[in-house]
């Protein structure tokens, strides 16, 4: 059998990198550890593609096809995430009517409370950071929470006053 040494060495390298990745996940907190684990994943994938899938000795056209698959996947993830980064959407957030963000969990909590109280589902809902109390005819419900109150009006929910937990992130 020819060319056995390279895949065996690649296997050894893979196991060492895997060990480093697992150690980082346990020992290095937060984003740094996550970034290192992701980097290790890409290196391990590269080892498999190069030595187990024969891309090292493949012709150039085959390499182009292999890279094209990775390129399109990268486009999909990067373009999708660019939208979320651009709109500055953070943990558990939903779009506010003023283009900012607020807590999605809080949004759903209030929405469920309104629906339970009124007995009918809300068709559409916005949460905005009101700069002054909003008054509309036909307001049917009012909900209070520390620092903020909500009013439901024909399925449209508007907060009144300052809401410390709903600040732009």
């Amino acid at each position, binding site marked *: 059998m020819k060319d056995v040494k390279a895949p065996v060495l690649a296997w050894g390298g893979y196991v060492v990198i895997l060990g480093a990745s697992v150690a980082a996940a346990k020992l290095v907190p937060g984003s740094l550890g996550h970034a290192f684990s992701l980097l290790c994943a890409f290196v391990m994938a590269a080892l*498999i593609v190069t030595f*187990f899938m*024969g891309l090292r000795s493949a012709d150039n056209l085959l390499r182009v096809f292999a890279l094209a698959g990775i390129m*399109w996947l990268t486009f999909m993830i990067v373009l999708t995430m660019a939208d979320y980064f651009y709109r500055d959407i953070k*943990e558990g957030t939903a779009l506010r009517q003023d283009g900012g963000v607020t807590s999605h969990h809080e949004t759903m909590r209030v929405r469920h409370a309104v629906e339970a109280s009124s007995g009918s589902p809300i068709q559409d809902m916005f949460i905005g950071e009101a700069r002054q109390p909003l008054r509309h005819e036909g307001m049917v419900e009012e909900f209070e929470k520390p620092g903020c109150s909500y009013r439901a009006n024909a399925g449209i929910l508007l907060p009144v006053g300052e809401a410390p937990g709903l600040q732009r992130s």
Partner: protein
Amino acid sequence: MTTTPSTTSKAEPAEQFDDMTQQRHADLMGMWIFLATELMLFGGVFTAFTVYRHAYPDAFAEAAGHLDLTLGTLNTVLLVTSSLFMALAERAANAEQKRLTLMFLLTTIGIGVVFLAIKGYEWHHEYTEGLMPVLGLEFRYPGQHPEQAQMFFNFYYVLTGLHAVHMSLGMIMLLVLLVFTLRWRNPPKLGRQIQINGLYWAFVDIVWVFIFTSQYLLRASS
């Protein structure tokens, strides 16, 4: 190490090809294109996971901490070892060594079975812990963000389930190759078949690397 001489080892291209080099290139190209479509299948799920991982970083990191990192790591080592034996089987077949080819293929299949058994054990453990929010099962999550954690576990079961299906299909193909190896009628053709299946098996390994990293490793540090 037994070398079984072949009675029909002279490689003849199929009629639509000029020579064996062209046929081999077509074989590989076809498989790589198929793998690119597979990449898009898993890529869609990974993209959705990335979006939610970004939206709920703390909840997803906490939920990942409920997975068994030791078993996940063991499975990762097992799968790359099976990929190594698959690569060795390809080389043994090209060297027309029947016994070694059989041994490497059997080892690859055996490791695949162990991988799926460990995965099944993990799923059963998560089921008993109430961490399987599928098929209407009750979700009993002990952490702070049960709604977001349920989303995490949905991704976890979709990804690992889809991967297990691919593993199972790959093992069926390996069993077919095992029968072909036992017959040993056309070793050059068998070598090409093992190479093509080896690409698929290695791809499944790559997918697992990213499943393991995204589901098990991106966790909150304890």
